């Protein structure tokens, strides 16, 4: 703060002269005015979030299972829910709006990217269904329904068997085949093309 005090009077003088002579010296003025940081540590704007409103909005689920709600899913029930609430867009196995289970010939040069061969974390299936599906009625499924659907889709992709129950403990432990395929971005600019 002290090192700026010398500059203040001369700065004021310069501003006064500049305005008097109608000069176009904006840049010079700006560079000669000592900048004093007036920012407070905190402004005090906003209000404290209540626990209830955080709980209402905090619907995300992490790969370690943090965020998964109580409830449990069974493959057979999930299959029934899929047939009533998902099949219109996704078809019975796959469909036009994002392949969920691969239906194409594996010999094809460019295989479809599905939950079974491309989704690296099983928790993402739960998180995405709960947040965004069904497309026309997002948020309409109960947590149990989301668990059932997650179980069915994992089974349909050959990742779990018909009997496996899916819940907050078992879902994070499901290892997806694609997890080992993903690597972090290593592009850094410069001459190398990556």
């Amino acid at each position, binding site marked *: 703060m002290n090192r700026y005090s010398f500059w203040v009077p001369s700065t004021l003088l310069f501003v006064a002269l500049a305005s008097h002579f109608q000069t176009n010296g904006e840049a010079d003025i700006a560079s000669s005015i000592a900048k004093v940081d007036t920012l407070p540590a905190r402004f005090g*704007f906003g209000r404290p979030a209540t626990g209830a409103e955080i709980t209402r909005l905090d619907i*995300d689920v992490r790969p370690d299972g943090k965020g998964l709600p109580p409830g449990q899913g069974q493959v057979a029930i999930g299959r029934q829910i899929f047939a009533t609430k998902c099949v219109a867009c996704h078809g019975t196995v796959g469909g036009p709006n994002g392949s969920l289970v691969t239906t194409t010939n594996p010999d094809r040069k460019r295989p479809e990217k599905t939950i079974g061969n491309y989704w*690296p974390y099983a928790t993402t299936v739960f998180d995405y269904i709960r947040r965004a599906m069904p497309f026309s009625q997002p948020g309409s499924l109960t947590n149990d329904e989301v668990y059932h659907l997650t179980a069915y889709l994992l089974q349909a992709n050959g990742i779990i068997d018909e009997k496996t129950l899916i819940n907050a403990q078992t879902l994070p432990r499901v290892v997806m085949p694609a997890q080992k395929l993903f690597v*972090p971005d290593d592009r850094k600019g410069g001459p190398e093309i990556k």
Partner: protein
Amino acid sequence: MKKIRIQLEQLTNRISRRTMLGGAATAAVALVQTASGKTIQQGVSLNELLPEDPTKQIGTLAGEVGTRSAFEKVVKKPSDISSRSPLQDFYGIITPSDLHFERHHAGVPAIDPAKHELLIHGLVDKPLVFTVADLKRFPSVSRIAFLECSGNFRGGKETLSPQEICGLTSQSEWTGVKLSTLFREVGVKPNASWFLAEGSDTAIMTRSVPVKKGWDDAIVAYAQNGEALRPEQGYPVRLFLSGWEGNTSVKWLRRLELSDQPFMTREETSKYTEPIKDGKYRQFSFDIDARSIITYPTYPKTVEKGWIEIRGLAWSGRGKVVRVEVSTDAGKSWQLATLQDPILDKAHTAFRYVWNWNGTETEIMSRVTDETGYVQPTFAQLAKARGTDNGGYHFNPITAWQLKPDGRVLHRPDNLR
């Protein structure tokens, strides 16, 4: 006789969608009073509205909102999930807000700004809720920067315009509060390494972002080109991460959660990831690599032999554009293009190169170099580096245009495999 009562504002302001689609024959919809006194809408041709001499007839009076000339038919090109900016029709570097590209995952939500709030919680000392009015009280910042969807590539055929090839990039002046200001306000804990950004659309779109970007230059933006954000760009509040793939700049922002790990949402795992070699897929590819494209002359325009000013845009998510080169002989030799000021960090930069075409068939193309020394690659270089299973994300090859002796300009497709 029908008495035509033309409301002047309708000349440009209220052209119906049907009229627009009707093409050149109909320029405006006027209210027409029939003999029975009933008022109906009727299409009126531009010629009927135009005075023979504009200096002899009083013009439109001052209005509340300006309009685009009825002669200008500049439009985005929509699909079900996105709408592409008409790059070939732009002048300068700012994208008119209503022509900024759109990409959303479940439509554009209608949000009342008086009811919208942003919650910041997780690994913070003090979880807080901010209204839009709260956000506007904080010190504001503005920056001019591009925003590009990382899935911004189309190819494969000759009849493609710049809009169709890479119209998912646009540029605005974005104004808002620095995210670092909000981070200080809530007291982000030292062990927070990522944050989740969540939108208020029906996709409740989420992305994980490293906390470092939040401290560096992230903005919680509420304005675009001098006015409130357009709904398509996130009204009333969006995240803006300059230089990063557009999907991370989450629109209709309602929540930020600080965490010690990424959340692995759908949009950062099964989408927005791209194949590289050996069956591997790259994840969290945030930076937009440098890219340029000639926007004139391009398909579907035609040209004449003689002097042509080749024009285009260049940008990099890693900093400033330092050089754009143009080739008029299919890449055999390159000449420096002139860069138009301002040359801004992580911003579309205009370039031009004046050339005398002798009328023989050739190909023209541009390549940009950014301040990291990265030179925009050819399609073949990208395929060599990443393999041939190119998903389209972060695909920024040199774009070539064929000039035919009859004056036609066609895109030159590269073969995917």
